[in-house]
């Protein structure tokens, strides 16, 4: 079967499944103004967070890159950066780092002498963009223009067993059709490091994945730890469950393991670092160029991404489990038939159909910390 979708082709060759105007705060201190601007103009999304100042090194770079990445995301027609003025994460620095392939502007509260002026100026800019964005038309695009994130949330063995035969095939089909896929490597998938290492030709990814065998590593900075990380070994059950979750990625080779804000260098299947805070994981996927996310769970989830449509797939449940938040329910039907149904839903959502989460306007953005604020 031939697949294509209707998307917004961008100047840099990427494609949007949505055509938002982003209002991005550089620091928490400008978040209220950024929100006010975005609330004043329809079609605009607030990209607000609680980081941006009193940060150092990797932790600061992560915040900066995350905002550069999401501003460059193809689902954004344009982005307005709203700063305070005295923050570490300067708007001028962001402007230098964001590729000049779309309308990007920056304003600051201190430079414009107050929040009222800043809101006025911001609304002016965004209203102009909204007019431009409104006349853009979707065009027919191949699946190679899709970058699909996939992540599991709160999922048990029984659900995995029912979902894997369908979603694994969907991922294979996406890769066969030259789409880019990135699977979230979160704490539930990490125990399958050795298995996943077998599937990659990238030595770098292989090394990193094999290292996961040592256990769960995360930075902690309250007490000073010798290796600044905390390792806990994975249990046998966790490994079994992770092996099952790994089947969700289908059978394609893994091209790379992407870090925070890292864009895939080639099409095909990738892994991307994630955390069990789904908002952080969605935000990282958005920053790495995803234009759609598949969420696989035992239940409907209660938030999506502010910038990406999140299509939720769950198994049928006797207790309902937030059915109104689900986009596709796995049935007893033949998996190959269901694969086509999921593909159809995915194409429709990519072409503009609202996901259940979008209908309820449930979407967030958040930036993880990898070091202390000071």
């Amino acid at each position: 079967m031939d697949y294509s979708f209707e998307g917004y082709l961008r100047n840099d060759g990427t494609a949007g499944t949505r055509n938002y105007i982003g209002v991005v705060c550089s620091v928490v201190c400008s978040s209220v103004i950024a929100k006010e601007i975005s609330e004043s103009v329809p079609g605009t999304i607030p990209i607000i967070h609680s980081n941006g100042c009193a940060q150092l090194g990797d932790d600061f770079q992560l915040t900066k890159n995350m905002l550069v990445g999401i501003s460059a995301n193809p689902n954004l027609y344009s982005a307005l950066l709203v700063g305070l003025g005295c923050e570490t994460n300067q708007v001028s620095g962001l402007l230098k780092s964001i590729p000049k392939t779309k309308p990007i502007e920056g304003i600051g509260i201190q430079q414009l002498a107050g929040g009222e002026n800043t809101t006025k100026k911001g609304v002016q800019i965004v209203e102009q963009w909204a007019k431009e964005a409104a006349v853009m038309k979707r065009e027919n695009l191949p699946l190679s223009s899709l970058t699909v994130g996939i992540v599991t949330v709160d999922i048990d063995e029984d659900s995995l067993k029912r979902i894997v035969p369908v979603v694994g095939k969907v991922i294979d089909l996406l890769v066969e059709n030259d789409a880019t896929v990135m699977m979230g490597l979160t704490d539930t998938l990490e125990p399958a490091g050795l298995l996943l290492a077998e599937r990659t030709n990238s030595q770098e990814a292989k090394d990193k994945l094999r290292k996961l065998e040592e256990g769960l590593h995360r930075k902690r900075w309250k007490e000073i730890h010798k290796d600044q990380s905390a390792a806990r070994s994975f249990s046998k059950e966790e490994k079994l469950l992770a092996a099952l979750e790994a089947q969700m990625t289908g059978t394609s080779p893994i091209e790379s393991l992407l870090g925070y804000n890292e864009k895939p260098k080639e099409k095909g299947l990738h892994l991307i670092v994630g955390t069990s805070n789904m908002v952080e994981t969605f935000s990282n996927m958005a920053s790495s160029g995803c234009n759609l996310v598949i969420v696989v769970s035992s239940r409907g989830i209660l938030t999506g991404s502010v910038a990406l449509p999140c299509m939720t797939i769950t198994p049928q449940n006797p207790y309902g489990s937030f059915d109104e938040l689900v986009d596709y329910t796995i049935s007893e039907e033949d998996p190959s038939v269901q694969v086509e149904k999921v593909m159809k839903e995915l194409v429709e959502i990519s072409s503009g159909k609202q996901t259940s989460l979008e209908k309820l306007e449930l979407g967030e953005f958040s930036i993880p910390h990898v070091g202390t604020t000071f």
Partner: protein
Amino acid sequence: MQTFEGYRRPNGSIGVRNHVIVMNTVGELASFTKKIAQLVPGVIPVVHQGGQAQFPEDYKQTIRTLKGTAGHPNVSSALFLGMGDDPLAKELEELLKDDNHHVHAIYFNKDKPVSEVLKEGKQWLEEAMDRSKTEKTETADVTELIIGLECGGSDAWSGITANPAIGACSDFIVRDGGTSILAETTEAIGAEHILAKRAIDPEVGKKFLKIVKEYEERIKDTGEDIRSANPTPGNMAGGLTTLEEKSLGCIKKGGNSTLMEVIDYAEAPSKKGFIFMDTPGYDVESVAGLAAGGAQIVLFSTGKGSPTGSPIVPVIKIGTNPRLYEIMSEHIDVNAGKIIEGKNTIEEIGEEIYQKIMATANGSMTASEKHKNQEFAIWRLAETI
């Protein structure tokens, strides 16, 4: 003795505001929390992205901050939104009910439609709003006030005008039997010996030096030097040259009173008088910690002009220079720039701030309240799992 009309809570504390708030316990529910708040005019959403997948140190800090916020004297009622399998909301509800707070937790359960949860939440909040309107105020005095001391967007004038004026005000409050809490541990680096000398006893002094040293090492341990990022670009544009200079200016907010106690982030002081709380210099996280520790009002000096506030406590902005007051008066409550112009002494501005505190305690809105600056963030201690 200075007095104000406040809201007496069943646990004995007294509030200067009577807010109804709704909070999420896990990041997944942040959107819903804002949605439910929108259903009932006047309800304030307090959202964050912590609460789940955290190491024990973060989990404990999150609980302490959420508990301090929901159980704050300025809060009339608080609603928690939790996931069905999430113990945090349950734990918070029980802890606060034990302390006689008007709180409630509702849960997203697999067998309950989302629309039901929204309906339930809306109903509880409507009742809480009605209830808050029937609550009467009573007269209380300054001995029951806890004032947080903060600075943000500092410039070279901060240490000369606004901070010493805040220090004078802090001394007046302590003299009159009230409590003031200085915060921002990183901004004591380089000036810690001065504050340590003022400790009531060697134990308190030692504890203070320990938290400062730990903070500096915590940063060094990540391979970074705090002196490379602080002062920030804005501070330098404002004329500050080194961290020590910024710190010496920063601690002036603490006046000259004896340091009675050193407390953890978001912890309530057990003593009256002058206190130090271990927080980052990052304003919003620091103010959230001060508020959760029970400060009913926060003083905040700014040289470059920062609009930030808090969802639950009035933040009083003290501008350091006349130009700032001229161009950004919408964000400034007190103009300490008059000191440069020779119109007022430090003590006089300290007195003006004191009067502003009492007016605010009596219900007068601050600039950040008028602009609905309700920023909130919790200091993180480890990566998300």
